[in-house]
């Protein structure tokens, strides 16, 4: 295949999957009321009372939902790895009169997409894979508790462990990238669950639908094993897990977002997202939240923190140009002085090229340094909408 054909191939894949994903993840039309979209899906409701373990599970009344795990793992010899394991659920448009009875094994109401990635810090080797399945025998999620699966990848609550409680369950994750890498981890919350946003609703834009219920375990202790190149190695580390429930994510004029989950060595965490507008400016709905050592959250608005991209890295696959680093400046609520946090990717090439999903984005493990260059924690940074605008896609 010559270069031109390859280019055309890539173009056509991007078109096709962009379109398929648009079908899967398209924003729903203007909503009719505060809780229900016009096409029958729910919108996040302020004051919602969460009940666990049920709310760790799936919410089919919403169109879109994800369980998003990112973490840093260490071997006993100090070898470092970063990983991502994401399970998406997307409901199909509802029809008033289903044409045919649905099959249990091959459903036509829900689609499940999953992303897995692994970074070997010492070599910079970055492996990733996407998977798409319809709800049924090979993918699905429980509505009673955390139990989501896609092929041989799954995340569930352990039922047998001491210390397992409804609100802070001990979790099991089985993930991997093809048969080149696999990881089996037990995840134990070190802190209580954080519910981001105001009154249980994390808003992304002015539109009523551009919001989510955003539940997070900011620090889970991970132990387990990682197999790479056929060699199994024991690992331990710290993991961040988001569970986000919504029917849409972006508002009008927004083209993407940058997100960071930062775990500081002093036991605190920061969750920050910057909604980016088409003119390059930061949307006022951007937010940064400090999580204290006890798990209490304190949010600051877009005007109270600065998200400054530094340098550039161009993806050889998608051609997208991403910031090489991010400098975050915000007032430390504990000390009351401005804190500078530099998020520095462990390796620049951590782009998921969207081969299946059609959306290329950067999601990678970072070191966190202070203004003096001292390493003060670790983070995962997500940057979307650089390869193509996310408008109309999510």
């Amino acid at each position: 295949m010559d270069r031109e054909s390859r280019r055309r191939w890539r173009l056509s894949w991007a078109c096709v999957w962009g379109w398929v994903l648009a079908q899967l993840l398209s924003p729903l039309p203007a909503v009719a009321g505060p809780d229900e979209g016009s096409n029958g899906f729910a919108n996040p409701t302020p004051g919602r009372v969460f009940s666990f373990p049920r709310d760790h599970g799936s919410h089919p009344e919403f169109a879109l939902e994800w369980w998003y795990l990112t973490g840093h793992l260490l071997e006993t010899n100090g070898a470092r790895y970063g990983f991502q394991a994401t399970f998406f659920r997307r409901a199909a448009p509802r029809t008033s009169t289903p044409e045919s009875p649905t099959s249990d094994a091959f459903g036509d109401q829900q689609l499940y997409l999953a992303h897995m990635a692994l970074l070997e810090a010492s070599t910079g080797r970055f492996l990733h894979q996407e998977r798409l399945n319809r709800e049924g025998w090979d993918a699905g999620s429980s509505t009673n508790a955390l139990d989501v699966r896609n092929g041989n990848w799954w995340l569930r609550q352990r039922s047998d462990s001491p210390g397992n409680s409804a609100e802070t369950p001990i979790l099991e994750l089985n993930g991997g990238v093809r048969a080149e890498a696999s990881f089996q981890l037990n995840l134990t919350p070190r802190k209580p669950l954080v519910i981001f946003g105001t009154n249980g609703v994390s808003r992304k834009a002015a539109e009523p639908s551009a919001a989510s219920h955003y539940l997070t375990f900011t620090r889970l202790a991970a132990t387990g094993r990682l197999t790479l190149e056929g060699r199994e190695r024991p690992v331990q580390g710290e993991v961040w897990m988001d569970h986000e429930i919504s029917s849409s994510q972006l508002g009008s004029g927004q083209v993407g977002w940058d997100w960071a989950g930062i775990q500081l060595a002093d036991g605190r965490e920061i969750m920050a997202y910057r909604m980016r507008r088409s003119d390059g400016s930061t949307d006022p709905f951007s937010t940064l939240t400090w999580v204290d050592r006890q798990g209490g959250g304190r949010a600051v608005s877009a005007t109270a923190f600065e998200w400054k991209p530094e340098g550039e890295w161009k993806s050889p696959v998608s051609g997208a140009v991403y910031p090489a680093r991010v400098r975050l400046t915000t007032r430390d609520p504990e000390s009351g002085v401005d804190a500078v946090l530099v998020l520095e990717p462990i390796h620049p090439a951590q782009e998921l090229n969207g081969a299946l999903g059609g959306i290329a984005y950067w999601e990678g493990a970072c070191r966190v340094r202070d203004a003096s260059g001292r390493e003060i924690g670790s983070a995962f940074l997500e940057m979307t909408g650089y390869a193509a605008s996310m408008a109309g896609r999510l």
Partner: protein
Amino acid sequence: MTHSPPLDSLLWRRFTWRHWKNAPVSSGLLLGIVALGVGVFFAVRLANRSAVAEFQNFTDVLTTESDGLIVAPAGMLPESVLGELRRGLEDDAVRMISVLESTATRPRMSESETIGSRSTYTLLGVDLIALQNLAGERPQDRRWFGQSGASPSGDASPGIASAADPDLWTLFRDPRSAFISEAQARREGLKVGDELPLVIQERVVSVRVAGIIPADPSRPRAPAHLMVFDLPALQRLTDATGRLSRVEFLMEEGPGRAERWAAVRATLERLSSEGRETPRWRVSSPAERRSSADKMTRAFRLNLTILSLLALLVGLYLIFQALDGAVVRRRDEIAILRSLGMPPSALRRAWLLESAMLGLLGGLLGLGLGWIGAQGAVRLVSRTVNALYFSSAADAASLSLFEALLALGASVLTCLLAGWIPAKAAASIPPAQVLARSQGIRPEGLSMPRRLAVVLGLGAVGGLGCLLPPLRLEGGGRFSLAAYAVALVWVLGAGLLGGAVLERLARALAGLGRHGVAWRLALSHLRTPSSRHRLAVAGLVCAVAMTAGMAILVGSFDLTMRGWIQRTFQADLYVSSDGAQSASTENRISPTTWQAVAAHPAVARAQIVQAARLQLPIGETLLVGADLAFFREFARPAWIAAPTDDTVFDATRNVSLALVSEAFSERFRVRRGDQIELPTPGGLHSVTIAGIFSDYGNERGSLLVDRGHFSRWFGDELASSLILVLRPGFDVETVRSELRAAHPGLAVFTQSYLRTEALRIFRQTFSITYALELIGVVVAVAGLGFTLMSLLWERRDELATLRTLGMRRGELAAAAVCEGVVTAVAGVGVGLVASLALGWLLIHRVNRQTFGWTLETHWPWAQMGLLAVLILGAAILTGWGVGFRGARIPAEREE
């Protein structure tokens, strides 16, 4: 003198090639005979290969070849196994592709069309969403969707998505959405959005073309008859909700793939039999699956290959004869070469080189002929494969280097074999010996008593060989190796006998009073026949014996089939899905439809026939559920071993009894009273064989049980056919028309129509045999012409003398005719006698051992007579032509 290539080259140019060049007609004819022999062999091999290659795993078109697959031992897999499989393999990086396969045809265009005239489509149901997961490796997998029209880029080529396309969910929610192959779209002028009526099960369904199956140059091209559906859609269309044909396993990329598959396979095998008396599925690999198709038809293809060697065997005699003649003709030259110091080894080499060159050139010509012939033969072969084994829609043979080399090798080997004795003869001519041509042709070969002793010996060895059992192939196939060896031994013996008969015949004819000069001249040559005469007769005996032997087999088959068809079709109407076109059709009739048909006021009794493929340890067979009492009454089976009492015909008492076909009994080596374990979806059932009936419907054998038990074991009521007996007073044609009108997806046949059609289909499956017979006759006739021509060449001096003595050209031609006719009579006579033995061997050994079918013997005298007349007529014509032309050969001219 030592071995020297320049000498060989000199010999080739000045000695061998000169002779070839100077006799273009006979050289051409000889090459033609070799080419025809090789061509037939090559054509049949290619056709065989293509007809079987058609049997492929259709999912290979959509995915990279899977590592393994599971199928139910009988019937289909329940969908519920999927969840269980994933739980069992929840940590394994393995993709599972669930597959449903079915068949369909286009609705009939006219009421008068024949069975099998419409091609069968393979409907493949796969989860089109899960298929996208292969996108990482295979870009074309992403081009399934968005084919339905206006693309924003304005690019109308398949695969470019249209953002405005609202059809993704329609595609998954409308069971009628189908993807067709590019070949079908081109052939039938279909485009995305078109409607296509199909007979699926017993219903006419209008399928909507949702797109073209994406093609990738690195994968097998989607065959024209393949249609792809989203799996649950096809389940609904084919009444197979909750059921699957198979699950394929594709290991994800990574190290140790083979080891990982072995571990997954072990888990699958454990899950299959965990806590069960009978395994729920069988694990195999695509290679094993392909080889099962190969095994299924191996016996059939081996038989065909053997038949295709007929022409080459006859050719062997002719080449032997030609090279032997050349030794005689070039004797003077050889003697001179020897006097000049040429060592015998160089002469032997020259002779063998000539044989090898003949094999090579003839072989190359044969490859061309075979390639053309294969295009026709493949249709004939796949027709038989279709009728007897599985759906094969091969309509073109593809070239195979292996087969070409094999054919070329066979050609060179045959020629070397034929040239071996002449080469020895050439090398043994002493230099001092200068032979005057007038010495004529010395008597050669064995003496008469020794010749007869050898013939008797060969006959006896053959007789003993008949007692040997067939070779049992993997998968239950049988191959009559011993019987074919016996055939070869007998043909060789008959060939030897032919030479002796020729000599006796000539002497006897010479003793019958006064004759004309042409007659006496001809007999003078035949009274002491040369080795060329003997070889010509032997070649003719071989061709006639094998051709007539095959005619006897086919005639016997025909007679038996006619009787069987008369007996078997006793009811009034026979109903099946209109989509049922071949042995492999999956179309069934739903209970609502067959109940409606059976409730027609004209129907007095209805036989509901259910059938499923059943995997037994040796191989696959057919399990049929039917009312056995009805079967006895209206199919009037001819018993090989009749049931000892009526229990098997009583549905209340026959739960552990079965009837089996003769082919089943042969293949699985079971007799009446034996027990068989049947692994059904409802568990393992043990049945005792109550009787064995003759059946010519399939060679894999069938097993008949009461339908009540069948439907309980398989958990479905889908019928493969219905047999109706009408009440008195109802007109069969009227009822047929009414049923057709009420159920357009059903085929309804009257008894007389079905009898005719069954016979037609049977005869059609033998078309390849007829073609091979015809080629056998052509080779025999060409061989006879060649013999006469070369004998006249040998005698060109004698012919010149006779002309000088006043013999006219016509008289010389008449002498050649006489010589040809007497030779032909000897060949045809002995050949026909030998054909009786061969016919017996083919019917009672080869056929019985291979297919398990007992045939009534039929001697097609008229056909055999026609063959004799044809060959004698050809002898007269070629004799006259060759003689007439030969009379003008100048004595001094070199050949």
